[in-house]
């Protein structure tokens, strides 16, 4: 089956679910406060967006172009690279709130560098520590923006 048709079908199914299941969850108690005045409710725009998605999804099914970049993922090494990156990214984000920005960034960078083949410790360690500490310092001291402190609440 043409990949565009698969994509179009997925969009149509999601749009249908959105139109039939998600939109009815929008509360309609606002109508009690609107009184007799004419107004346009909060469901109008989601209906427009969902209907457009459904129609354009159908359009993709009916006029598949087949321009895609899926072929790159047929190579096992490419798939592994994407999965490893995604896994490390998710792990890093999950760790942020627990370990704080500094520790989790150091850990994530060390893992990233080593998983993708960097073996020089004199590059890995200073880069990981430097990026984590400098980013936190700049955000905190120059931009006055907090970054996740984590359970350990390191001063930097």
């Amino acid at each position, binding site marked *: 089956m043409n990949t565009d048709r698969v994509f179009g079908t997925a969009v149509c199914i999601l749009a249908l679910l959105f139109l039939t299941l998600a939109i009815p969850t929008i509360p309609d108690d606002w109508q009690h406060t609107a009184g007799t005045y004419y107004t346009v409710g909060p469901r109008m*725009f989601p209906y427009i967006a969902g209907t457009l998605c459904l129609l354009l999804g159908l359009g993709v099914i009916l006029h598949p172009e087949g321009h895609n970049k899926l072929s790159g993922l047929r190579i096992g090494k490419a798939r592994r690279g994407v999965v490893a990156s995604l896994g490390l990214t998710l792990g890093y984000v999950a760790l942020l709130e627990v370990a704080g920005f500094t520790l989790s960034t150091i850990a994530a960078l060390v893992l990233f560098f080593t998983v*993708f083949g960097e073996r020089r410790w004199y590059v890995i360690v200073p880069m990981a520590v430097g990026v984590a500490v400098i980013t936190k310092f700049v955000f905190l001291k120059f931009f006055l923006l907090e970054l996740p402190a984590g359970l350990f609440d390191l001063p930097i």
Partner: protein
Amino acid sequence: MDMFLAAVATVFEPANIAILLASTAAGIVIGAIPGLTVTMAIALAVPLTITMPLTPSLLMLLGLYGAGIYGGSISAVLINTPGTPASAATSIDGYELAKQGKALKALKMALIASFYGGLFSVVLLVVIAPQLAAFALKFGPAEICSLLIFALTIVAVLSGDTIIKGLLAAAIGMLIATIGADPMLSVPRFTFGVYDLYDGLAYIPLLIGLFAIAEMLAQAEESFTTGAKLIDIKDIDKDANRLTRDDWRRSVVPMIRSGFLGSFVGMLPGLGAAIATFLGYAEAKRASKEPERFGKGAIEGVAASESANNAVTGSAMIPMLALAIPGDPPTAILLGALLIQGVTTGPLIFVNHPDVVYTVYVALFASLAFMGMVGWLALKPIVQVLKVPKVLLYPVILAMCAAGSYAIRNSIFDVFVMVGAGLLGYALRLFGVPVAPLLIAFILCPPLEESMRQALIKSQGSLMIFLNRPISAFFLLLALAAIVFTVRRQIKSHQALPSNI
């Protein structure tokens, strides 16, 4: 004339020059860091201006404003990660040029176009501010709605392989934009009890995810082979990075046109630079005799988008000064900063505070000149980032993006949104669906929904309000024409438009 000369003398005092220099450099850096916005930079700087006299405080804020919008183009060109939403369109061709070893050329054009766009809009501000502000007042909800529909349509139809995929990306963006409290009645939509969703999804994590994280995942397909550079160039090729006569020939008209477009969008309250840049880019592509070059490293694409986004900086001041209506979020903060200084804007400012008006004019010119100088000096050092191996560069970008996404609302939820948007952006890329229309639809939809509902309430539900008003009908006709002409062009040429947006 005396007031003008007095303003020049004040602005060019050594202490004020130092402030302008520092704020311009800071603006470029902040703009280049994904997640840190111009609005945030100006908001953070306002408390510092409270104890300052008027001129240095204006110089600090205006320096940050113009330079910050230009700074966004640096990361857009070098690492395909727009520093600000206003530079999202710049990355389309800028990054392609960088991949061809012409990053310096793209950055030079971005700087020149930014300078031109800024200059054009400041001249407009000086020459016809009150008249233009009066014209902008003719834009009611119906006109704003039609203009936004036109902007959305033109971006969507010109963005992808096919019109359908471009429009579909825009529809997905509209759908995502409906999450959170609705803009008129504050009724929660699709929040499912999750507190973080009540304000909707923030656009910065979405922008970072769609561009930076998706790019990282795409690069990970090659597993970041050790030693591989983002762009494998040993030294910057000077000849390839020189702006040629041909580059100028291609870029001048789109740049001028985008200056007009950006200035026009800037005048209209609530729109801003992100919309201007996509409109400028899409219009340059539509008008081009070789639209197939766009998305593959067209220098005129960089010129058009950068001229449009910086043209907003001066023109957004027009309604702010003449009517006390800010054109975009940064000018809303500037309005507050002026109030702190005891200056009330509005029609009477030209009578009561002409000195302030002249100071604003001179400060805008001076900040543009400094943006040009600082930006030019920084070009070559900045390009060196391309020499960092990918295996080191992308994890560092990830850390910066996570920090930027978190800092927007101090919410770890936004960092997860960034990752989710990255996955969505990567998946859409795989299926050849452009992400630019999705982002622009997401940004446009809150004002679009608001203006559409306001117009319909005003007309008691009649859609004729969009056709009975001449300006509104004009924009709807333009949107229809854009679809018809693009379909005709695609049928005629039997060739697909570039897909790498």
